[in-house]
């Protein structure tokens, strides 16, 4: 929207302030970033893994599996939900020159703490359980991180103005995100899904991102990994293109609506 010679500095300042606001104000401080999502993972692990005993089998322990999937998903969800209230929450934007991109990117980066916690779990387990993955497997979570950030950014640029312009789009989006939690192998291993249901899973880009995130603990053969990389790259590029083009145009209209 505008030329910003000092984008990165200004962004860094904002992300730091956001993180400080989220975590520094409490007694436990930064621990909350770890503790709150870990509790959620523990709850799922107890319900599905222990009480229902639903997921048993060889390979990665259930707790590690959902941790590796749930954390990146929380990042996505938090960013998109955050973008859906971005404009109404910041009405002062209407009369400010702070560019939209900056606020969306800030949200993407500040929420990424969640995904980083997920990575720590994945790498921690992979290190303890003995290195089985290839170099590509070890590197793939970082690619996933970057590609998810770009996807979130693109979609966020679209979501923020749309939820302001279209009535009822926000609650719809929130319910959709809840449903989507089950549309990718986040809480269950991809391997237990078979047949046509599995091909359906493969249409979900997040399934492919999860393969990349779980690279170090659930090594995937190179051909299918390369497909996942390709899907994730195309998704990120498409989100960015749509977000930048449509988003920018809608942004002006959304501003006038504030």
């Amino acid at each position, binding site marked *: 929207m505008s030329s910003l010679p000092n984008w990165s500095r200004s962004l860094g300042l904002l992300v730091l*302030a956001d993180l400080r606001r989220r975590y520094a104000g409490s007694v436990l401080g930064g621990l909350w970033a770890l503790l709150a999502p870990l509790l959620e993972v523990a709850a799922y692990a107890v319900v599905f893994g222990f009480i229902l005993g639903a997921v048993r089998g060889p390979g990665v322990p259930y707790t590690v599996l959902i941790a590796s999937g749930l954390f990146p998903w929380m990042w996505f969800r938090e960013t998109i939900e955050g973008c859906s209230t971005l404009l109404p929450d910041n009405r002062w934007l209407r*009369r*400010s020159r702070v560019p939209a991109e900056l606020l969306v990117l800030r949200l993407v980066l500040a929420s990424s703490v969640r995904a980083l916690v997920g990575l720590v779990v994945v790498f921690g387990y992979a290190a303890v359980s003995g290195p089985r993955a290839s170099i590509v497997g070890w590197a793939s979570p970082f690619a996933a991180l970057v590609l998810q950030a770009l996807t979130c950014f693109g979609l966020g640029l679209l979501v923020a103005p749309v939820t302001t312009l279209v009535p009822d789009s926000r609650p719809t989006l929130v319910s959709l995100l809840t449903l989507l939690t089950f549309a990718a192998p986040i809480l269950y291993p991809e391997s237990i899904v078979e047949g046509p249901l599995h091909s359906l899973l493969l249409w979900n880009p997040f399934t492919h991102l999860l393969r990349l995130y779980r690279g170090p603990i659930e090594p995937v053969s190179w051909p299918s990994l390369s497909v996942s990389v390709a899907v994730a790259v195309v998704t990120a590029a498409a989100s960015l293109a749509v977000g930048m083009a449509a988003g920018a145009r809608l942004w002006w209209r959304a501003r006038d*609506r504030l």
Partner: protein
Amino acid sequence: MVEGAGPAMSAAPAIEARSIGKVFGLTSGAAVAALDDVSFDVAPGTALAVVGENGSGKSTLLDVLLGLTRPSSGSVRVEGETAALLELGAGFFHELTGRQNAVQLALLAGASSASAQALARRAADFAELGDFFDRPVRSYSAGMLMRLGFAVASNLHAPVVVVDEVLAVGDGYFQRKCIDRLLEMRRANVTLVIAAHDLHALRSLCDRALWLRHGRVAALGPVNAVLGSYEEHLLRRSAAASTPPGAGGTGEVVICSVRITDAAGVERFAFRSGETLRVEVEFETRKPLDSPVMGIGLFRDDGLYCYGPNTLFDGRLRDTYDGRYLLTAEFEELPLLGGRYQASVSFYDKDHVYAYAWQHRLYPFSVWTERKDHGLVWLRHRFDVRRVGDQR
């Protein structure tokens, strides 16, 4: 943005607005025209005052100039960078401190990291916020937000500065400081656009003025001429807004006749300031009434309410009334200065809540005076001068 048509006579204008229109679509599907065919130029280094009543499109116009919203039609061209002081707190991240916000805004305006820090220091000096400068903006009062906003905007060194309505917020000391700074900018050849309700300040700050009315240009020209006719319009409007002459009430009292007389009881319509004026009201009650509140109001011809005593406030004539009576209100030594006036008469229930009968501004009279004093009334006064301190 599209270039405006036609070269200016001397230097190219700093701001060139051509037939700007702005229509806001509402969620209901309806559309509201906030601006309609607004054109003007602002020469470099001059100041334009933007006036108009609330909702006349001032803020939308400033937003269009600053590129915060896009015009629906027409074009605007602004030469060089702009700095803006709009709504209080607009553009501030509320969780950041004043200093961080100053740095942030400077960075966004394209400053380097070092010069952004320097700007924050200058803003701190100007704003005089003390420790608050390093506290989150969310803890600021309106006056402090205004100080920070002005301090940052005025230190960005932009060639075009736009100020909207915020000057009225600060305390008197800071307002003067802001106006001094704006005058300083004028000397430094900064182009200014200022929207405000303080016409006095606008007269001293601006060369030209634009009066917006319902989104259209009502007048554009030299500041004194435009503000003069705007002021006149405001006066006329405030007169029209006051209750027009008329009569009404719930009917328990009937006002039979009203006469304005002098001390001798002779009906008169013109009085000399200082004479006795009497209002005689003959009324009849429709049923026994307990302590009705009887009042007289004196209004100037433009609707200004000059004086309104009643029997409740005076604590007199509290009694039961049943039948026909003559009420007399006598104003000894009428202090009103010259002008045309009207009297009102009213009868209320004992709690002064609803009116049994009222006749508003139906009885005109005029006052003349040999005095040259200005104003509405003559007040007892005395001038005195005495030397203080030693003679040098």
